[in-house]
């Protein structure tokens, strides 16, 4: 799963031109940057923000899909969904660890998520209303994620790139399990097919928006590209996603809910209708239908778990003391 294009990165930096030039030469030579290496403050800040947003997205992303684990309509689906949602948790864990190499702790990042300072992918602020949503999320949302994440495996920051390689390897089953669910519904009873189409109608536009604002409106994107934190522009990735997805929908007889969608022979890709950016920004700014509930659920898990974490630490302290006394 993944976050949208980075929101609100601040690549400003104060180092000397010589330092920045030398750093840029390393990047241009495709050298990886590792945790203890000297790096521009803006580079570090951009990464902390991006990896943090990415990690938060994985964690919050567990909620909409987790909403259906207890209702999955076959034991095979139940096991697959549980394994998938578990994977999202693992991906959040790898990513937090990658961010921790930059000197910010997981607890700090968690606090930022819970008090609203940190962003996460706005797609997870939509509700999952039927079982078909689980299929469509796997197909579209994980599909969009893969488009975004594969280039991140070559990101200039070593720990982020390594985490992404592991994430991509594990995610290869996610989109397939989603598409298989949708395909089964599309070939099922009329009610099941209607359920699949309804889910596609609701998730298509939010999925398209996952790639972030149009390139012309994307702040700080150029600096991220130069630093090779980002490798393709939002619009390039969005185009790739649409071109890959349209035939998949046609194959199972579902209709993409965009009347303006047409094949453009000249560019060798699809043209799509206008995106509702007002909705995008409304949801990004925390006014999505499920935004409050998502943070409330994360806050509850964190607060309810405090006594467990404290007990583990207290016990560890006792163990240490006993060991010392025995020596």
């Amino acid at each position, binding site marked *: 799963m993944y976050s949208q294009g980075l929101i609100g990165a601040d690549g400003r930096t104060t180092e000397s031109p010589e330092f920045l030039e030398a750093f840029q030469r390393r990047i241009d030579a495709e050298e990886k940057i590792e945790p203890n290496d000297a790096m521009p403050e803006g580079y570090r800040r951009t990464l902390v923000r991006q990896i943090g947003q990415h990690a938060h997205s994985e964690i919050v992303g567990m909620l909409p899909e987790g909403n259906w684990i207890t209702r999955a309509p076959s034991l095979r689906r139940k*096991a697959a969904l549980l394994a998938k949602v578990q994977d999202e948790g693992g991906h959040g*864990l790898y990513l937090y660890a990658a961010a921790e190499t930059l000197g910010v702790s997981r607890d700090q990042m968690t606090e930022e998520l819970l008090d609203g300072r940190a962003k996460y992918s706005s797609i997870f602020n939509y509700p999952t209303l039927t079982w078909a949503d689980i299929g469509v999320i796997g197909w579209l949302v994980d599909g969009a994620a893969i488009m975004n994440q594969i280039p991140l495996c070559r990101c200039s920051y070593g720990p982020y790139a390594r985490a992404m390689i592991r994430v991509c390897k594990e995610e290869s089953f996610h989109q397939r399990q989603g598409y298989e669910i949708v395909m089964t519904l599309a070939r099922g009873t009329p009610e099941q097919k209607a359920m699949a189409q309804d889910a596609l109608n609701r998730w298509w536009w939010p999925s398209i928006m996952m790639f972030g604002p149009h390139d012309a409106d994307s702040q700080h994107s150029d600096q991220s590209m130069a630093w090779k934190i980002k490798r393709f522009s939002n619009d390039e990735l969005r185009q790739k996603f649409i071109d890959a997805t349209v035939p998949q929908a046609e194959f199972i007889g579902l209709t993409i809910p965009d009347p303006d969608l047409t094949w453009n022979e000249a560019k060798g890709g699809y043209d799509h209708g206008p995106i509702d950016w007002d909705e995008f920004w409304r949801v990004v700014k925390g006014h999505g239908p499920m935004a409050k509930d998502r943070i409330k659920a994360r806050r509850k898990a964190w607060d309810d778990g405090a006594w467990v974490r*404290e007990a583990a630490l207290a016990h560890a302290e006792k163990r240490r003391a006993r060991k010392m006394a025995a020596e």
Partner: protein
Amino acid sequence: MALFDAVLELADDHLVLGHRLSEWCGHAPMLEEDLAMPNMALDLIGTARTLYDYAATLEGQGRTEDDMAYLRGEREYRNLLLCERPNEDFAQTMLRQLYFAAFMHPYWQAAAGGGDEVIRGVAGKAVKEMAYHIRHAGEWVIRLGDGTEESARRMKDAVEALHLYTGELFEEGAAEGVDALPSRAAIKPAWEATIDHIFGQALLSRPVVQYPQTGGRRGLHGESLGHLLAEMQSVYRAHPGATW
């Protein structure tokens, strides 16, 4: 059809407990547990699937594993009351897991040498899974029992809340006289040894239960199982005959 009934009882235990554990996914006290609990849940659901499938084969009426899981109501479910107890807090969840795994580990060990090929296969795999569940849940019970004042109180409350359901573990149920399955009553000493070993480190003691609770094997459940099943079966039952 004593074997059929006995296999179904085991399958229900595993599915219901696996379902309960899966409810934690995304809500655990720390991220590492968001991965650990689904691992245990997936072990249990995997075993349940094999057992339902076997039960369906024994019955020979063309039912599937999903028919078994999704089309029986609370009076037909045969799971132990322990398995259906709500998660409540992390202390109760870990203790419930320990109680169950500490029974199933020696049970599967005994079953691995039995006369039924399918059961031997299940046992061979499950015995390793249960060994890990004992370790994971057990280490948590120790940490919570001997952690902070609050965690120790919660752990004692958990023992208070759950111990009265453990007697049912040792009732033979439908397995009475079934050669392919071990005697459940005979597992008791091994179970007690495991629990005492962990409780000793967790500063807990095994209480004497005045009024043990039982009835799951006869479909006499607590009220929460009905809600669990209503939720679990809702989509499946809303679309009779559909494929998923």
